[in-house]
């Protein structure tokens, strides 16, 4: 089987260049907002909070904040990356090129995931300025980081294909992802909630990501890390299936 490596590289590089060009909104603004979270929640409010599972509140926050950026940035980067050529019409070129659907996805999603990972790394580094970090399971930390960035970039890609306006492009990250992250135990352990809300939170998919990711740092988690791993793999499968279906049917891409 032949693979159009140059084609994948062209899309990937194109998307990465877009990031360097818009470095302000791609990197600076998420880093700034994360720093603000650290100052407000970690330093100001955190000093009044007791430790959670033997971890200071500031340190407890870090995995949640990284996930917050990872999820929102993966989705919006990938969504914008594919929506824009659809919007301007330049997608004609990709459709008429000797490149398969899977190669197109690798290019776009790979670039979006890379950006999120760079961002995640920067936020982790920023965090070390505020709190002392330790990583108990580096392999699993990278596992969650990479798989989450990839899967949510896939989700973003799907949203970008689906969206027919800039409004729709914003709506999912804003109205779905952000609330799920805030309510998914990014800033607290679900033990702190009344039992009813604990059960509701168990329906929130983001809980499993944050919990697993936090476990890889501090070995404390709201749900078993195995369930987290199973969950992220299942979610990846769902996204891959939808993307496969999109290209099989040409949904909103080809007529």
């Amino acid at each position, binding site marked *: 089987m*032949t693979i*159009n*490596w*140059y*084609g994948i*590289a*062209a*899309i990937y*590089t*194109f998307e990465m*260049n*877009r990031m360097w*060009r818009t470095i302000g909104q791609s990197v600076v603004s998420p880093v700034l907002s994360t720093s603000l979270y650290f100052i407000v929640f970690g330093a100001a409010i955190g000093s009044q909070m007791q430790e959670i599972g033997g971890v200071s509140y500031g340190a407890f926050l870090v995995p949640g904040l990284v996930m917050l950026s990872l999820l929102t940035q993966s989705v919006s980067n990938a969504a914008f990356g594919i929506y824009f*050529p659809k919007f*301007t*019409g*330049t997608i*004609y*070129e*990709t*459709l*008429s*090129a*000797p*490149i*398969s659907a899977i190669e197109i996805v690798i290019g776009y999603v790979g670039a979006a995931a890379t950006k999120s990972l760079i961002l995640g790394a920067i936020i982790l580094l920023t965090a070390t300025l505020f709190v002392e970090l330790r990583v108990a399971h580096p392999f699993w930390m990278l596992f969650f980081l990479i798989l989450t960035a990839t899967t949510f970039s896939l989700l973003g890609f799907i949203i970008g294909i689906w969206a027919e306006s800039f409004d729709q492009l914003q709506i999912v990250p804003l109205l779905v992802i952000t609330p799920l992250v805030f309510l998914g135990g990014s800033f607290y352990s679900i033990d702190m909630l009344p039992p009813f809300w604990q059960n509701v939170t168990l329906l929130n998919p983001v809980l499993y990501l944050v919990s697993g990711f936090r476990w890889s740092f501090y070995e404390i988690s709201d749900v078993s890390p195995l369930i987290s791993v199973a969950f992220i793999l299942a979610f990846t499968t769902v996204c891959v299936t939808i993307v496969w279906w999109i290209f099989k049917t*040409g949904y909103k891409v*080809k*007529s």
Partner: protein
Amino acid sequence: MTTLISVNKLEKEYDNGFKALKSVDLQIEEGEIIALLGPNGAGKTTLISAICGIVNPTGGSVTVGGFDIINDFRKTRKLIGLVPQELTTDAFETVWATVSFTRGLFGLPRNDAHVEKILKDLSLWDKKDNKIIQLSGGMKRRVLIAKALSHEPRILFLDEPTAGVDVELRKDMWNVVRRLREDGVTIILTTHYIEEAEEIADRIAVIRAGEIIVVEEKNTLMKTLGKKTLTLELADPIKALPDSVSSFGAELAEDGQTLTYRYDANAERKGITRLLTALASDGIRFSDLSTSQSSLEDIFVDLVSSQGDAA
């Protein structure tokens, strides 16, 4: 000549039930320039889009260089460069970057010398570091052509290349087209400027309401369908034509001084001698005489409207 593109019973029905292509058959020969002529909405762009892979056909098949466009899409698409009708460009990229991007997308390694040559050929070299958003419409059109040529295609599709383009660019573009043809590149262009097709194409396909109604060598088409017109300037104005003359179908202009007679250039009996004899016997003298051949435009209008009457 060998057939390079073979379109067989190609159909496209959109979800809303609109049939953009109705069983289209078309063979395109290697190295020729073929013009797809037709009114707006006839299906020209749909046909091109289907061959290039942008539109999924709902029936029939297409082969390019002997390969099926669906099963062997990598082989067929590498052969093709497409210049779309709309000026769709990445506004914030530089000219150089966007042309290089296309080359990569089509699976070729970087080749700065080739990109440089294309940009120079299209008078884009001094704009290579400009962002596309800073370019004029004509320059953007050149960029689209450069992109289409970046991967050294054997086939070039030009979809309405001269719509809204100034004279200079039009000349430049036809020079590029001629040069490409000398290199053996097959060129398919759509246009509704008939004089363009007349000037540059080897063959003409007329498409109307999703059907190809004529495919013919340009010269043959003009010969077989062409009518000639005989124009006589009368020495003295007359009020009306005598019956002996008007029975041939000759017409008198309002000034009473110009007589026109249209005849089939290929007919065995063209009726010219009889017309002139009739004029002489009625004592009508003429001071000048000329004949002219109908243009492709007249042929086209004839074709499209007569088919319209039939439908």
